[in-house]
């Protein structure tokens, strides 16, 4: 069964049609990449899936449930987590404090005025585990705002993982990174996909990352689907090469 099924979704801003009748089905355990030139509507499409704003037309089904009209925080509660193109973290809090918020939310404690010793210990252990997984070991007491761009992004991804999502949406996870950091983040995503069996949809500009990670690729251009297929199919698709890959190379 598809974890995510987007049916014929359209988003209009005034006269501009940012996303025009796009459909997408993502299977459990799949890693799907969305690529396309600037202004193709990739981030708008992401915002529709995650509930940043509602679509003008179309439906979005998550885990068999129509979520088209429900607010973003409830989508998160259903198991959908996302990161942003420009990292969204709590820069003036430490790594540990950043992770602690989603760990406690995932434990159903967001309204709790207190926590038992056992729950506290459980949360602390989970935070350590997440830091270890994200390559943030030993940086728990550092302010996130002082960390490198790569570590900030790793923190943001691990905050999403802390929510134990069924679907992870990553908007350009390696944007603005050097080779070293790109490698670090790519390895982290690969591990989340392969070892944690997470279903992931990501937008990415770096073709090395896309072809290294993706099971399937969807190409958007001018708000519509230009092509869809395995990395090998997309790599040899002439339409895609003309519209996108050719220009990028």
């Amino acid at each position: 069964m598809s974890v995510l099924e987007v049916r014929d979704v359209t988003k209009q801003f005034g006269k501009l049609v940012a996303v025009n009748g796009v459909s997408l089905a993502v299977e459990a355990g799949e890693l799907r990449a969305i690529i396309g030139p600037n202004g193709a509507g990739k981030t708008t499409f992401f915002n529709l899936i995650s509930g940043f704003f509602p679509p003008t037309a179309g439906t979005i089904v998550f885990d068999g449930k129509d979520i088209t009209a429900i607010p973003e925080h409830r989508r998160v509660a259903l198991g959908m987590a996302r990161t942003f193109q420009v990292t969204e973290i709590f820069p003036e809090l430490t790594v540990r404090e950043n992770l602690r918020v989603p760990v406690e939310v995932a434990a159903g404690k967001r309204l709790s005025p207190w926590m038992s010793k056992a729950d506290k210990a459980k949360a602390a252990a989970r935070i350590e585990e997440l830091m270890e997984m994200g390559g943030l070991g030993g940086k728990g007491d550092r302010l996130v705002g002082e960390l490198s761009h790569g570590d900030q992004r790793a923190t943001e991804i691990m905050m999403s993982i802390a929510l134990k999502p069924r679907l992870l949406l990553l908007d350009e996870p390696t944007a603005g990174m050097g080779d070293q950091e790109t490698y670090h983040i790519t390895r982290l995503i690969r591990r989340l996909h392969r070892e944690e069996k997470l279903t992931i949809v990501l937008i990415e500009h770096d073709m090395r990352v896309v072809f290294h990670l993706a099971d399937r690729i969807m190409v958007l251009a001018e708000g519509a689907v230009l092509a869809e297929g395995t990395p090998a199919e997309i790599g040899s698709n002439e339409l895609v090469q003309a519209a996108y890959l050719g220009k990028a190379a």
Partner: protein
Amino acid sequence: MNAALKDQQANAIVWALLLTMPWWMGAVGGYTELAIRVVVLGLAAMSLNFLLGFTGVLSFGHAAYFGLGAYGVGMTIKYLVASTPLGIVVGVATGALAAMIVGALIVKLRGVYFAMVTIAFGQVFFFIAFRWNEFTGGDDGLTGWKRQAIDLGFTKLDILGSDTLFYYFVLAVFAASVAVMAILIRSPFGRTLVAIRENERRARFLGIPVDQHIWISFVISCFFVSLAGTLYALLSNFTDPRALRWDQSGNFVIMAVLGGMRSFWGPLIGAAIFVVLQDWVSSHTENWMSVIGVFFMLIVLFFPRGVLGMLRRRATA
């Protein structure tokens, strides 16, 4: 130095000073009533700061709930039952109920829009108190009532006869209130509030219903500011419409920012500076507010984290 140890030291110093205040207040030229005003307005400023400093939401209308608490206790004692505890309960319930309703109406607004609407609602309550002469006393204020001795069964607390006893009564209420706020700030719920302050978008996409959490924070904040309002009215056995006017709201904001809104005790320090400065300067000139204004501007310009923030930076430097 270890942060937790430093916090404990700060707590010990604050409580030692508060517990002994009636003894040394006279020696430094003050008097017990001044000490009570510091504690009461400190509670009001700390309550405001629960919303301002720990949720990142600015209200310019907290005097409305302060005033509702004040009128609630005064009117209960004057018209209904001569009981201080019951008056406090009615005053706080009135303020909290009003906050629940107003909060639900405005919780979708952010930043300056939220602040403006809180002023507007505050002024509504001000005009009711100002106009409803036969019931509230209008511009002359609500007079003709006094705080009542509290009967504990085994003994009577004569808080009317003894200023010192009233000070300790106020301090006990203050202690219980700030303890609750401190526990909340350190709870999972409190951490969601700080998360909202730091980055609302991230908080939303961590699954936190931000509007709901801000509403709860607003109601908690107004609950305690109403409680401070009841104590303020009990202190002078009087209240008037100025208790809920917008400039009183502004004073709370000034106290919080002056002392340091990112620190737990900051607003209490701010209130102490405000009250003492007001008392001292107003005995020399009527324009005491301009002195406080200049002082406030200097602090904001040079020490944006407030007096406590400045002291902290000294300590770590």
